[in-house]
């Protein structure tokens, strides 16, 4: 507790304390505060005044306000009157007074508050009695001193006289007002030295564990910022408003109208009117002038523009090589196998079908040609995504593949024809290839006797009957095949069930039933299985001799009929109605329907044979006038052009009547209708040509594969006597070439080789993109060639005539020389002898063996 300090001074200044006569121990109050500590104010009563003879205005007057009172008197008073005595408050002072007489002073003015006061000390008495003299003396003394010399008087040490300052100091001192309390806190003795467990405690968790002085914003210390730097920006005021108009929403409105037309009679009537005649007469002149003007010259031709070739080539123009894209080799199935045929899927990108067969040399093949091969031949499907594993493998005794749309038909090296429609084809990536069995096999007795070398679907626009006449095909899908085989026949097959003309023997039926069909084979063609007969057979005979032509390849004309739009729609809708999955189910044989025969259809086709001949013949049978039977016609034309078997007979994709034949060591191009010979026949190449194909996009380009693995690219616009380019693909014989276009920028060519590897190469821009007017240039070239052939023919004739003439002349000459006479002969002989003598003479002279006369020589010299 803080000691409280009270200023006693202030309290004392206001009033003078009057000590109550309580006890003897209370100190008498003196006029200490007024600077006279020896003055003790007293109140004397009249009685006391009489006793001590200090009656006011009698003993004590203004001139003599004091009275000296003996100490013994005061004591006697004390004894008499004890406490009543007026001197009682100052009893102590009186007792302590050293002198005998005390000075008592009458305070008339009540200077010290009471009417008398007592001076408590001798000194004071002395001072009182003698004070007026001192100041006077001092004043007088002062007047005199300045004239005298100041004498320094060092201060004399005097005893300290208390003047009351100690009281002030006492008041200022800080004293402890209260007594301090001391505490001693100690633990229990038993707990001394015991383990202590300290723990943390959050101060805020216990109530009143702490007292905090939180900061608060004191208003006295906040500064108000009266000036601030602020940036300003003016922003336009944007206000969104909307209005609504009465515009109605747009509606589709249509009007239907038809043109006004005249009826036939009106037209006739008008046509006969005179006005029309006159009009036409007037007008036709100017019209004809205009027409002729256009014929003469096209005034609007931009010569510069027509000079330029098409721009914007994709890729490097100088790049002319085939680029390797991918190559497929099957490691499981291909052992000692070669690829015989390659076909691209027309719709799915990157799917290729390849047929493989056992690699046999020529002798072995001849040896085995009549027997069934024990090793199965397969058809593999490759996809671009997987170069090692084929997608699907078709297990079959086939070695030949051809595909149109979703249908597949396979020829075999043996006698049968098998059919495998592939409705359920799904090219998934299986590690183990799927094996698919065939659906139907042709009948063994009625099929081909030897190797089938070529097989084609007939286009879906027409079909033929047993006699070879052509009819319209209503079903819209191709359902007939044509095959040619080494037994010198060409057969037409139909995959639809035929109306049986002769009742089938029941034994055969039983045999059929006993044959089990595997489960996963669709039953569409069961009717054909093992009982499939060809529709008609065409025999290629050489006439008198028993040897027949052995056809290797066919090429049919690809005339597509001009269907009227409505009929085609009908056919297609029928096909769809029949069911999308199995369009073949509802087909019936040709004789059932009454189809419209097509009269002026070209039934001729080209055949290439094993001996290297190209035959142009007709499949339509005609009545033989002698025997009355139907017989095949004789071939229209026949040419032996190639040195080996013809293995490619192919029509150009751009021209309907240009055919490419490749065989042996050379190439020939034919035009249908020109019977005199091939348009182009190349010279013998260094290596045998083993396969060939037209380019799909450029009309003058075709690819030929050689037996040493090279591919020759011929470009008829560049060179016609030799290939424009030659590129190495593989090390063995190329067995099949098939190009395919996927898009305008991507064109691939599939090349199959003898070792079973399929190479896919990309055709560069230059070889795939035709230049402008290339089609017309090539057709001009062919026309020129045709003319050349004609010219040659004519020349032949002319030469024949010339030859005849020359022979006649020669004969005439011979006759003339025979008429020479004997005399003439002798004369001639003599002349010869004389000239000989002259010659001898000259030589001898020259040699210097005979001397020459000088005169003679002189004459000669002149």
């Amino acid at each position: 507790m803080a000691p409280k300090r009270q200023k006693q001074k202030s309290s004392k200044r206001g009033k003078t304390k009057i000590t109550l006569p309580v006890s003897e121990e209370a100190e008498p109050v003196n006029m200490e505060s007024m600077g006279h500590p020896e003055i003790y104010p007293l109140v004397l009563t009249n009685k006391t005044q009489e006793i001590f003879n200090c009656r006011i205005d009698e003993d004590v007057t203004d001139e003599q306000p004091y009275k000296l009172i003996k100490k013994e008197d005061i004591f006697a008073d004390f004894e008499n009157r004890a406490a009543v005595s007026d001197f009682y408050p100052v009893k102590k002072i009186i007792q302590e007074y050293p002198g005998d007489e005390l000075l008592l002073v009458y305070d008339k003015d009540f200077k010290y508050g009471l009417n008398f006061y007592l001076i408590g000390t001798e000194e004071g008495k002395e001072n009182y009695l003698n004070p007026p003299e001192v100041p006077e003396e001092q004043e007088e003394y002062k007047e005199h001193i300045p004239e005298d010399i100041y004498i320094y008087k060092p201060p004399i040490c005097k005893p300290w006289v208390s003047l009351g300052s100690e009281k002030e100091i006492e008041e200022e001192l800080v004293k402890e007002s209260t007594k301090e309390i001391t505490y001693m806190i100690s633990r229990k003795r038993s707990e001394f030295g015991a383990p202590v467990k300290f723990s943390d405690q959050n101060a805020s968790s216990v109530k009143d564990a702490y007292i905090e002085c939180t900061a608060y914003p004191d208003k006295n210390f906040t500064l108000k910022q009266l000036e601030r730097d602020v940036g300003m920006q003016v922003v336009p005021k944007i206000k969104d408003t909307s209005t609504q108009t009465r515009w109605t929403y747009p509606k589709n409105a249509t009007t239907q109208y038809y043109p006004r037309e005249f009826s036939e009679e009106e037209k006739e009537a008008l046509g006969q009117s005179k006005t029309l005649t006159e009009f036409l007469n007037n007008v036709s002149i100017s019209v004809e002038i205009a027409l002729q003007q256009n014929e003469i010259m096209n005034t609007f031709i931009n010569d510069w523009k027509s000079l330029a070739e098409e721009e914007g080539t994709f890729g490097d123009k100088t790049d002319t090589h085939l680029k390797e894209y991918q190559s497929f080799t099957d490691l499981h199935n291909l052992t000692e196998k070669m690829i015989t045929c390659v076909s691209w899927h027309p719709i799915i990108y990157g799917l290729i079908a390849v047929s493989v067969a056992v690699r046999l040399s020529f002798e072995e093949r001849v040896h085995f040609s009549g027997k069934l091969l024990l090793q199965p031949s397969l058809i593999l499907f490759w996809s671009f995504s997987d170069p090692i594993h084929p997608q699907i493998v078709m297990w079959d005794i086939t070695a030949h593949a051809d595909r149109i749309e979703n249908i597949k038909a396979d020829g075999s090296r043996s006698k049968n024809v098998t059919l495998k429609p592939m409705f359920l084809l799904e090219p998934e990536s299986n590690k183990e290839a799927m094996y698919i069995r065939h659906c139907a096999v042709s009948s063994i007795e009625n099929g081909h006797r030897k190797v089938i070398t070529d097989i084609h679907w007939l286009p879906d626009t027409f079909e033929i009957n047993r006699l070879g006449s052509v009819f319209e095909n209503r079903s819209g899908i191709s359902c007939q095949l044509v095959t040619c085989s080494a037994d010198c026949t060409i057969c037409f097959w139909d995959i639809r069930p035929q109306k049986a003309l002769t009742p089938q023997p029941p034994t055969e039926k039983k045999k059929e039933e006993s044959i089990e069909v595997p489960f996963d084979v669709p039953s569409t063609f069961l009717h054909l299985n093992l009982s499939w007969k060809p529709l008609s057979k065409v025999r290629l005979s050489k006439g008198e001799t028993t040897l027949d032509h052995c056809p290797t390849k066919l090429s049919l004309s690809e005339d597509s009929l001009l269907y009227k739009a409505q009929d085609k729609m009908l056919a297609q809708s029928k096909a769809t109605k029949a069911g999308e999955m199995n369009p073949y189910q509802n087909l019936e044989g040709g004789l059932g329907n009454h189809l419209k025969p097509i009269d002026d259809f070209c039934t001729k086709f080209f055949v290439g044979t094993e001996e290297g001949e190209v035959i142009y013949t007709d499949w339509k049978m005609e009545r033989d006038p002698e025997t009355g039977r139907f017989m095949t016609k004789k071939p229209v034309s026949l040419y032996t052009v190639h040195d080996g078997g013809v293995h490619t007979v192919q029509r150009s994709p751009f021209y309907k009547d240009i055919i490419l034949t490749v065989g042996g060591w050379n190439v020939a191009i034919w035009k249908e209708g020109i019977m005199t010979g091939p348009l182009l026949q190349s010279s013998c190449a260094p290596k045998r040509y083993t396969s060939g194909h037209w380019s799909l996009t450029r009309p003058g380009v075709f690819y030929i594969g050689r037996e040493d693995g090279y591919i020759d690219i011929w470009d008829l616009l560049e060179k016609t006597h030799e290939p424009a380019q030659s590129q190495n693909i593989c090390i063995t014989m190329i067995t099949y070439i098939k190009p395919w276009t996927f898009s305008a920028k991507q064109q691939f060519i599939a090349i199959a080789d003898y070792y079973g590897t399929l190479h896919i190469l990309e055709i560069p821009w230059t070889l795939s993109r035709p230049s402008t007017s290339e089609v017309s240039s090539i057709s001009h070239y062919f026309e020129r060639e045709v003319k050349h052939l004609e010219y040659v023919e004519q020349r032949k004739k002319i030469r024949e005539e010339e030859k005849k003439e020359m022979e006649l002349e020669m004969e005439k000459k011979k006759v003339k020389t025979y008429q020479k006479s004997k005399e003439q002969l002798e004369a001639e002989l003599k002349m010869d002898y004389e000239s000989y003598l002259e010659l001898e003479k000259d030589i001898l002279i020259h040699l210097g063996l005979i001397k020459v006369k000088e005169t003679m020589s002189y004459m000669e010299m002149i």
Partner: protein
Amino acid sequence: MAEVEETLKRIQSHKGVIGTMVVNAEGIPIRTTLDNSTTVQYAGLLHQLTVKAKSTVRDIDPQNDLTFLRIRSKKHEIMVAPDKEYLLIVIQNPCE
């Protein structure tokens, strides 16, 4: 009548002529070598164009008149010979 046919045939047999037609003053075809829908389309459009061309020429000079109208396009040329009552339209492909 024979004359009419003969003249039309002669015009049609010119080199490059694709089609010929005779149209009356209202745009209704009378004779044509093309199929119906094409004829009707040509007749309607060219009739209107001829009327417009004629009025243009006469606006500029009232004493002038339209004698022949040739429209050259990328693929072929259309020639229109107008008259008081009829219109002869010939379509020719000038360049082979």
